[in-house]
């Protein structure tokens, strides 16, 4: 772990990204301490500019506190980003492992399915899925996971294909281990690094998709989110620019930080790549 941190530390922008990400997590974790009230609650005079009427970042047309919305929205973004990525990675690993390990018709079937999912315009598909299932945290997580798993499946399949004929796997066969034990216990741990890297980058994409869905009015109606704030403020662009501006900056900074962390992980986990510029 310490050796890993030493490698990671060499990439300055990755350390910066990690610091920002930790800050976002801190904001999400303390949202209920600093802003104990419901972020949908009318907190004061409507359309107050930043700094006025006790609003740090202003208020919107209904007098909701933008800063409170951003703090509570951080929770939503991180939660949905992490959950959706988790579901997508588990699905992708399962599909990719089966396809790569067994080959033959299993591989054909699973890879054709993956191809089909990769052909479909993913954001339009996500919109459709959420619209059909009715907007809620579960439906958003499912929709994002459904459009994200194919990339993982392809990656894991490739890794399994190259690892399954190695000596250590053959040794496991000779020892009489079952297929699933070999797949999960022996091969999978050997391809964790690329899965971790792709997973970390997927969290960023998931947050972007979630904000896009919420912007279009497909967010969970009971939960504050950054995309919802921007969508609600777009009609006020002329009179209250701050309603849209600050939640957007929050998305930008969070996604940027996650991308930097992902690249840092990539450099630290694949030391061979680091020599390349």
């Amino acid at each position: 772990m310490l050796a890993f941190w030493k490698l990671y530390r060499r990439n300055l922008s990755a350390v910066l990204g990690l610091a920002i990400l930790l800050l976002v997590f801190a904001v999400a974790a303390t949202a209920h301490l600093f802003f104990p009230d419901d972020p949908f609650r009318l907190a004061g005079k409507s359309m107050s500019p930043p700094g006025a009427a006790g609003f740090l970042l202003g208020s919107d047309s209904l007098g909701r506190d933008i800063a409170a919305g951003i703090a509570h929205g951080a929770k939503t973004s991180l939660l949905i980003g992490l959950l959706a990525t988790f579901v997508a990675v588990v699905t992708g690993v399962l599909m990719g492992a089966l396809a790569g390990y067994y080959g033959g018709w299993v591989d054909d079937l699973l890879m054709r399915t993956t191809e089909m999912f990769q052909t479909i315009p993913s954001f339009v598909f996500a919109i459709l899925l959420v619209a059909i299932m009715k907007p809620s945290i579960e439906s958003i997580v499912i929709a994002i996971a459904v459009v994200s798993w194919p990339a993982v499946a392809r990656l894991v399949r490739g890794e399994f294909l190259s690892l399954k004929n190695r000596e250590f796997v053959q040794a496991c066969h000779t020892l009489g281990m079952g297929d699933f034990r070999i797949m999960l216990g022996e091969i999978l741990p050997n391809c964790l690094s690329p899965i971790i890297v792709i997973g970390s980058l997927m969290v960023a994409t998931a947050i972007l998709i979630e904000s896009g869905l919420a912007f279009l009015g497909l967010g969970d109606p009971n939960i504050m989110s950054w995309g919802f704030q921007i969508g609600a403020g777009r009609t006020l662009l002329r009179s209250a620019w701050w309603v849209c501006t600050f939640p957007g900056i929050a998305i930008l900074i969070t996604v940027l930080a996650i991308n930097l962390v992902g690249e840092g992980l990539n450099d630290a986990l694949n030391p061979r790549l680091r020599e390349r510029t």
Partner: protein
Amino acid sequence: MDHFTRRIRYVLKRLLQAVPIVLAIIVMNFFLLQLAEGDAVDVLAGEAGSATPEYMAELRAKFGLDQPLPVQLVLYLKNIASFDLGYSFRHEMPVLDLVLDRFFATVLLMVSTILLAVGFGVLLGLLAATGLNTWRDTAISIFALITYATPLFWVGLMLIVVFSLTLGWFPTSGMENIAAFHEGWDRVVDIAHHLVLPTITLSLFYLALYTRLMRASMLEQAGQDYVTTARAKGLTERRIMFVHVLRNALLPVVTMAGVQVGALIGGSVIVESVFAWPGLGMLAFEALFARDLNLLLGIFLLSALLVVAVNLVVDIIYSTLDPRIEVS
């Protein structure tokens, strides 16, 4: 076998490979329609305000909705095969007519976006790769990193604040100034004026993608043997970079442009709804608000077919550019 028949064979083979994907997409579309709460008759009855159960049963029989699922699926496939994408009860028009009506606006936006994104992406990637590890490279990389992380709808709104509301350079929304009754050349200029902000917004994300890809591709090509040969021949560095390396480095960028069409359609839903650009994306946004699932599914099906078609065309063009592909 001569070259020509081999090419025809390749094209036919690729066409055949696309058939199962298209079929699978249509079948999936059918099941998504089944998943949705309520059927077309419920919607109709809701619109009418009141409908007797007998009348609803009669309507279901008329549309074939009382048939078992496999029969309905065959019916659906038949409809799609005759280009019948269903009926939008909100617009009281066939989905196909609505979609075709909006098709041109989206294609216009997508083509201008691809041109801008690929053009500038190649340029920026080239600038970054030729000035490796200088301030120029760093600045371009930071720019790409930031645009890659920015939500499209937010960029669009910020551009409206700055360039439409504050500076007044560009219109905030729409595709043309209908009240002005422009004709001929004036109309083209008017549409181009409206096109600027949506195109910039939609291209930003892909610009970042192509910049990074072009930079990486240039660096990879610069390490190849033929570059050493060119250098040994005594060619100038400038000539090596711009004539030899650039040409080869462009290939992956062209492929990527084809692969990204699906993502571009998703992006255009957002950009069109920000700028009220009257294309397919805006139509999808309206369908979403009106809970018009028939229309939404029609748009989805058409955009998926569009992606399959574009990938096919790109593959065929690509095999012409790079004859090695046919061999495999």
